[in-house]
């Protein structure tokens, strides 16, 4: 097993940094769409190596962060019901709902289980025919195919006690929504490589044309990101706005055709609310009519949900690239990974979590940091 070392070679990285400096003549602001890219940038200190004025704006591509509070609260309500086994990826368990999180439901006796694949949840349903097994299906185009496959298998195998709590969202409509905002400062995008590896790149030329922005499909390792930035700056400096693929080892123009066929079979596009951003038309998936019986929202009585978002939390502005995490007054004070106000502080891909984990030395007074840590 050897996958990653060659994509973080410091000598090659140094050469890419030199090239970026050589071609940059003026300030540029570009958004890395994916939270995984944000963490890689902050963890490796890539933003510290860029020419002055070249700013990385952190995008909304953290699936945990954008899952609406209402869905989290529905998850909490379902997980508390007797006879339910509620399955989720690990990083959803610490995300705060209006009053608590899945960890607190678990510690209070709810049967909440961390699984590493939705198919594990289906296996649990098969093994526990007298229980209702619910999988929390969140995420972008990257996680949706596996969840679609699981529902497809549940129907094919006739497993009636499995359902999916669906909150899938789509990246290109969010990029359009960001560009449509009057406050938008984004001049170019590093598109999320994993998303494109599933969906291909066919949706992006229309965006480059409509908004006159360069879009470079970019991976997640340090060299991937530096190469994406290099190509983006070259386009910006030369006044071009095209789609480029800097992640060709994983992304083809047509994408993963079997995965897309599975998505089209199980899901249909719908309007979706993004936590901190609001409703974006045609930006998500819901189960199609054929699979409606596997919809956990319909199966459980969780319609009467009243959400209560923190008044202090500015994660929506962070997700839209309008402010940096440390520019929120609650950052590192009322809001820490131990006691988060919003999902961006708790998700493993959240921008606030990245700044708190790797950069709080730069952005907080040490005395404040100690105070927070000693609580």
């Amino acid at each position, binding site marked *: *097993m050897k996958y990653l070392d060659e994509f973080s070679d410091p000598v090659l990285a*140094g050469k890419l940094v030199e090239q970026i400096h050589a071609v940059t003549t003026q300030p540029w602001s570009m958004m890395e769409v994916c939270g995984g890219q944000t963490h890689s940038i902050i963890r490796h200190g890539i933003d510290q*190596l860029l020419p002055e004025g070249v700013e990385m704006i952190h995008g909304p591509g953290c699936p945990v962060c954008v899952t609406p509070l209402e869905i989290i609260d529905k998850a909490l309500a379902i997980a508390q019901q007797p006879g339910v086994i509620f399955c989720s990826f690990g990083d959803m368990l*610490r995300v705060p709902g209006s009053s608590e999180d899945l960890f607190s439901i678990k510690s209070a006796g709810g049967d909440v289980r961390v699984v590493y*694949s939705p198919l594990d949840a289906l296996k649990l349903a098969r093994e526990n025919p007298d229980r209702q097994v619910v999988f929390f299906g969140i995420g972008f185009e990257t996680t949706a195919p596996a969840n679609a496959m699981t529902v497809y298998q549940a129907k094919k195998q006739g497993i009636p006690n499995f359902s999916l709590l669906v909150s899938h969202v789509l990246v290109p409509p969010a990029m359009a929504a960001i560009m449509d905002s009057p406050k938008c400062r984004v001049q170019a995008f590093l598109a999320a490589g994993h998303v494109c590896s599933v969906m291909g790149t066919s949706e992006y030329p229309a965006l480059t044309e409509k908004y006159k922005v360069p879009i470079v499909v970019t991976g997640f390792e340090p060299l991937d990101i530096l190469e994406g930035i290099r190509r983006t700056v070259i386009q910006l400096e030369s006044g071009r706005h095209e789609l480029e693929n800097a992640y060709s080892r994983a992304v083809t123009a047509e994408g993963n055709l079997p995965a897309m066929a599975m998505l089209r079979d199980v899901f249909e596009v719908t309007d979706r609310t993004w936590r901190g951003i609001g409703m974006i038309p045609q930006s998500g998936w819901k189960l199609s009519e054929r699979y409606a019986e596997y919809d956990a929202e319909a199966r459980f009585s969780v319609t009467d949900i009243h959400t209560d978002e923190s008044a202090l939390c500015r994660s929506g502005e962070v997700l839209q690239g309008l402010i940096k995490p440390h520019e929120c007054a609650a950052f590192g004070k009322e809001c820490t990974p131990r006691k988060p106000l919003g999902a961006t502080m708790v998700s493993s891909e959240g921008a606030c979590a990245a700044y708190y984990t790797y950069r709080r030395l730069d952005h907080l007074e040490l005395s404040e940091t100690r105070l927070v840590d000693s609580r």
Partner: protein
Amino acid sequence: MSNDLDFEGWVCPLPLRDTPTIVMGHGGGGAMSGELIEQLFLPAFGGAARAELGDSAVLEVPAGRLAFSTDSFVVKPMFFPGGCIGDLAVNGTVNDLAMSGATPLYLSTAFILAEGTPITDIGRVAMAIGKAAEVAGVQLVTGDTKVVDSGSGDGIFINTAGIGVIPDGVDISPARAQVGDAVLVSGDIGVHGIAVMSCREGLEFGTTVESDCAPLHGLVADMLATGVDVHVLRDPTRGGVSATLNEIAKASGVGVELVEKDLPIQAEVKDACGLLGLDPLQVANEGKLIAIVAAEDAEEVLAAMRQHPRGAGARRIGTCVAEHPQMVVARTGLGGTRVVDLPIGEQLPRIC
């Protein structure tokens, strides 16, 4: 780990033969409890057992300072590449004693067994305990067994407590780290945590990584034999190197600056961490130690460590600094810096 127990040799009287799994009676203090101890635990512990089966062990201790430590082990799965909960329970406490410079002498072993746990699993674990104690040179002098209802526990939980003796003149404490000191590690980090995760249900991935579970007091003795004043020793178990260095930074008030490119990490561990979204600095170790010594003593201590099988991969990974007191910072491979944070709780693999 091979299952080379001869259960046929233990089959008389009845209970061990007739109940292939633990039942409540094995913890009831009656005949079945006695048979479990006399026919399973004591033979499996072998030469390391020194049980007189009284209410307490009566021990000979040399003059000087005693080190006393206890730890509980709840690892899942209980068998993993390179070890099991049994050798972990011995080495964990042996190493806690060793990190104060002590020579471990005596251990207690207390078991909480879940009803329904296969007797063969307990036999394998007990044999691993006996073997690990023998390797570490400690005696198993007292113990306890309780059985809990099925569903109240998860297989086997073990508590060990240990007593050791600290040589005169040794003063090791996390508070003694000083600005300018060198930070050393005895070898590759993150191995144990990845070995356990590689066989955890739902997360199985192909790897040849085996746990580094091992006793460290021999390595510590060799380090102390140099005559160097070792300021701090810690074994970076749960929470990994990150948690250990953060605790040292807090206890002593110094800052710690690591150099990422100097961290010894096996390629397989690095790749597994990359795939799972984990930081190798936060992954558990069970056979490695962190040492902090004056910078001028670092090479002498490293040379002594490298002479010992448990320290062959020893290297310097950082420095104690006056900047950013009580915090750990890493210089990244690309030349940036980042805070190395204390993990909040258990590391959770990311969604995508």
